[in-house]
């Protein structure tokens, strides 16, 4: 069995701050500080714009937080753009060329340093991410215990297999995952519960450089087009065969029968029937909610479920997705970012897989109206036990005021943080978040994770034509927390000895943190969601109320992706603990009856000829 030396409870318990360290007041510098350059993440995502206004230029850019070398800290991969105008690559050089892999040396040689230090190891890794990079997804597709990288490109996607020795091998074509379309986001999830991660690829529009379309702003000057200028591209669903390859199941699963301009995707069991469903955010059209009917077949039910259009019935520009249980009622709610003027949308799960748009009542419409949101996530930034919302923003239509000031890429906006006040209400607290929330950028992807292992959630933000930002949380770890890594033993590739008995992150697992006299907190282990990015698979649970523990944790229940559930004793606070599937006490199947999403429209059998 391959050792997977994630730093477990004991070491981090020793390193972590004491449980009660004082009030979680926001320091003068704000709740977040950008430490990208200081810690070695010197990188600039270039979209290759030369003035021709090619559509991919305005939507790309994502990053991944993942522990590729298994040393217990989060490493970084960030995609890179290219010059699309024929013959202009030499006159508009992009530096650095290609996506980059940065190793985090927070923990090196088994020693934990005071803070992360990133080293560009792209060359040594063998990764040649030379496509036009749009986004990235992470999952261990071959069950060898090591997370692999799926790069979403304008052009053929790449699947980089993690060899476990610091190097990667490109296997997309051999694995049947080399989607040639413009892909933005993808989700690794075990959709048929066979122990192997399947892959949903959200493809965006059919665009060709040679078929570029001339579009203008309302002022009549040239500008980037909107999505409806191009036909939607079909998404792809790849079923993992368990032999290192994927079967293109787009047709037989039913998902190829619907076309949307997919920007974000997340896999979660929205109706509580034990099978992961898929929510796809479509730009400029109705979203998809693919209800998992078992047998690798899916039914599109977004309209009857209430998530196809916003509460006013408008098909809007859906981009980034945050999926999480913000109201602690045991189901998965959705937050989706939109264009300026539309307002983002909070869809509250009614418990049966149907949703209600409660954005305005939550206080989220008004503050989100001026912004065009992309990456987003439910994070408990202050570890008070409530999931807050972060959205990173950047316009897609030129902002005349910035253009007048001479900005060469006038699309910049500032990120937003919405604090969960409880009772279904939120308040924008961006001003308290520090300088990174006052600095405008053309933000696209956002990946979430605890990059310095200090017990709070940090954020990696990719700006188009801007420096990579690492928003390091300064406040969360002042409050009590617990961290969990959820792993399970999964089948290995046949005939490969080193895979036997490997454990991998159990993406899709759900955690109930049961507390005495307080609401149970539900969290999910996932790398998907947000926009064009992959996040930390670990689960971080804030437990604070002021500077003390809000309520004692009595047990932790894990609902594994294969349908089984176990209970574990309370893990130590202020530390990450690895929970192994099979090591807990089995729980009876949930008493809660499996709810079902509403049935969609029957499929037509007509002959529209």
């Amino acid at each position, binding site marked *: 069995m391959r050792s997977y030396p994630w730093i477990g409870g004991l070491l981090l318990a020793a390193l972590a701050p004491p449980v009660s360290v004082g009030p979680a007041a926001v320091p003068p510098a704000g709740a977040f500080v950008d430490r990208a350059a200081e810690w070695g993440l010197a990188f600039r995502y270039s979209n290759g714009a030369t003035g021709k206004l090619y559509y991919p230029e305005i939507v790309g850019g994502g990053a991944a937080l993942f522990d590729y070398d298994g040393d217990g800290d989060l490493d970084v991969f960030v995609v890179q753009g290219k010059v699309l105008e024929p013959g202009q690559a030499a006159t508009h050089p992009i530096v650095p060329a290609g996506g980059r892999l940065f190793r985090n040396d927070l923990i090196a040689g088994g020693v934990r340093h005071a803070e992360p230090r990133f080293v560009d190891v792209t060359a040594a890794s063998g990764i040649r991410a030379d496509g036009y990079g749009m986004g990235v997804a992470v999952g261990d597709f071959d069950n060898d215990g090591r997370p692999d990288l799926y790069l979403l490109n304008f052009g053929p996607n790449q699947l980089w297999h993690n060899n476990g020795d610091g190097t990667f091998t490109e296997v997309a074509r051999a694995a049947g995952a080399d989607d040639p379309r413009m892909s933005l986001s993808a989700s690794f999830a075990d959709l048929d519960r066979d122990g192997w991660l399947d892959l949903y690829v959200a493809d965006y529009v059919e665009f060709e450089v040679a078929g570029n379309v001339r579009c203008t702003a*309302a002022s009549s*000057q040239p500008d980037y087009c909107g999505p409806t200028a191009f036909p939607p591209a079909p998404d792809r669903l790849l079923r993992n065969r368990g032999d290192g390859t994927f079967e293109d199941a*787009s047709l037989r699963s039913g998902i190829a029968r619907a076309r949307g301009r997919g920007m974000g995707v997340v896999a979660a069991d929205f109706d509580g029937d034990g099978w992961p469903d898929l929510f796809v955010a479509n730009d400029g059209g109705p979203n998809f909610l693919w209800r998992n009917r078992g047998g690798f077949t899916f039914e599109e039910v977004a309209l009857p479920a209430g998530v196809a259009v916003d509460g006013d019935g408008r098909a809007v520009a859906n981009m980034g997705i945050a999926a999480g249980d913000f109201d602690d009622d045991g189901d998965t709610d959705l937050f989706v970012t939109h264009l300026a003027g539309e307002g983002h949308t909070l869809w509250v799960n009614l418990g049966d897989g149907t949703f209600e748009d409660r954005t305005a009542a939550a206080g989220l*419409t008004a503050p989100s109206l001026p912004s065009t949101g992309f990456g987003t996530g439910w994070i408990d930034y202050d570890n008070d036990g409530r999931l807050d919302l972060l959205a990173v923003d950047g316009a897609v239509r030129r902002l005349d005021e910035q253009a007048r000031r001479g900005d060469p890429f006038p699309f910049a906006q500032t990120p937003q943080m919405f604090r969960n006040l409880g009772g279904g209400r939120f308040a924008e607290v961006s001003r308290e978040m520090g300088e990174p929330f006052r600095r405008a950028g053309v933000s696209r992807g956002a990946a979430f994770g605890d990059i310095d292992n200090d017990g709070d959630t940090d954020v990696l933000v990719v700006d188009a034509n801007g420096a990579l930002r690492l928003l390091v949380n300064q406040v969360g770890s002042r409050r009590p927390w617990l961290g969990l890594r959820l792993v399970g033993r999964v089948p290995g590739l046949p005939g490969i000895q080193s895979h036997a008995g490997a454990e991998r992150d159990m993406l899709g697992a759900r955690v109930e943190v049961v507390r005495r006299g307080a609401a149970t907190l539900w969290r999910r282990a996932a790398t998907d969601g947000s926009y064009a990015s992959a996040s930390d698979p670990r689960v971080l649970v804030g437990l604070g109320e002021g500077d003390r523990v809000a309520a004692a944790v009595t047990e932790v229940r894990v609902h594994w992706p294969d349908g089984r559930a176990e209970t574990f004793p309370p893990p130590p606070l202020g530390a990450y603990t690895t929970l192994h599937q099979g090591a807990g006490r089995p729980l009876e199947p949930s008493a809660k009856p499996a709810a079902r999403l509403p049935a969609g429209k029957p499929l037509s059998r007509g*002959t529209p000829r």
Partner: protein
Amino acid sequence: MSPRRALRLLALAAALVLPLSAAAPAAPPVEDPPVHHPDLAPLEAGVAEQLAAGRRRLSDLLAGGAAPPAALADAYGELGMLYHAYSLAEPAEACYANAARLAPADPRWEHYLGALLQEAGRLDEAAAAYQRALARAPGDVAALLHLGEIRRRQGRPDEAAAVLRQALAADPASPAAKALLGQTSLDRRDFRAAADLLEAALAQVPAADRLHYLLAQAYRGLGDGRRAAEHLARAGQVGVRPADPLLDALAALRTGERVPLARGKTAFQAGRFAEAAQQFRLALAARPASVEARIDLAACLVQLGDTAGAAAQLRAALALDPANATAHLDLGTLLAAAAPSDEARAHLAAAVEALPRDAAARRAYAHLLRESGRLEAALGEYARAVELDPADDVARLEEAETLVRLGRYRPAWERLEDGVRSLPASGLLAHGLARLLAACPDPALRDGARARDLAATVWAARPTPEHAETLALAEAELGHCAEAARWERAAIDALDSAPADRQAPLRARLAGYERGAPCRPTALTSGPP
């Protein structure tokens, strides 16, 4: 209150103010806040000229130094409207602010400022501007409706309801007031009131199909699943816009190519092709070099039956932009529909080269090659089309039909079987497979029972003459001549008004079926017409 009456009242309010302002001593021409006029160089010529003229009017007054405040206010306000019309928000806001300062009793500039700020999502400031406008023109329905909508979006449904009730009291016939109040009732979870108000709005504006979505929510809240489902099935994207004469005046200011292009596209999507063509001609008048307008006009002309005119527009578009892939594709498709020709083939080949991943272009090219008799070449293109879009059942069927024409029956059968497996909901492929199984020239591939099952399924989904005919073929293959005759008669009856040459083969087959066994169908080498 009708829009026209509202406009008259606002004009009256302004007129009452103007003489007073005019009598006041001339204010020094101080600009506060300063207006940062945009660079007009990147704009369309017509738009730039229009904005420059507005700017000159203002600068002339300012240069004179003695313009009365009311005249200056109008000049600022009208320039603000021009900037606003073209979404140049920053200078528009400054212009409105100056206009409102110079004519503090005129409701127009606060109203426009409110609209501008509302569009920018600055709801608190927008609400304040509308409230100032309402203080100057109490009871203005449009301002009340906008303010009510803002309160809704601010998550203040009770305040929204109060404002919207004022609007409804002022104009009891306003469908927008009813719709917004209905939405507010939904926000407040008063589903009964929501359903009543939304039904009333929908009755007045049946085209506003987005109201069906709101009604579905209301009925879902009332526990009436049947009505919720009915409304959900009819939900669309057309809403109810509050009547606002001031904003209509703003829209009327827009000139240039962009606005008629947008209007033309809206009309086209609604099926109003003559109106769309008129708008695209306006766009061309504004910018004769507009390739987009020519391509869109061509699409309208095709719908209006003027294919020669459409082809002329597309050729003109290609003269302006020889590499335009859309123009090549549209012209090639248009020419190919008339007859396969070298010109059509050249345009479709250019489209496919420019758009190598466009499945529809690939299929159109394959179709042309097939109709030109270049079956082998067509097969390659069909295969690529299916590879690009495996859900394209038309490409799959035409590929199989091409194989049949080439006498490759087994590969055709394999393609259709694969298609039906992959796209089990495609009636087109099920029907194609049924015909092949019933009447394949290779008797070894015939399977009457399966053909009948497939044909019966597609008939149940859609009872067309073609499906009846295929059922007849299947029954005949099974030796059920009387049943075959019954289905063939059904097909002929349904084709009663069809040309004789369409009916002739059916009548011939019917005669064969009526003669009784053996009545197995003769081999078919093409699909249904």
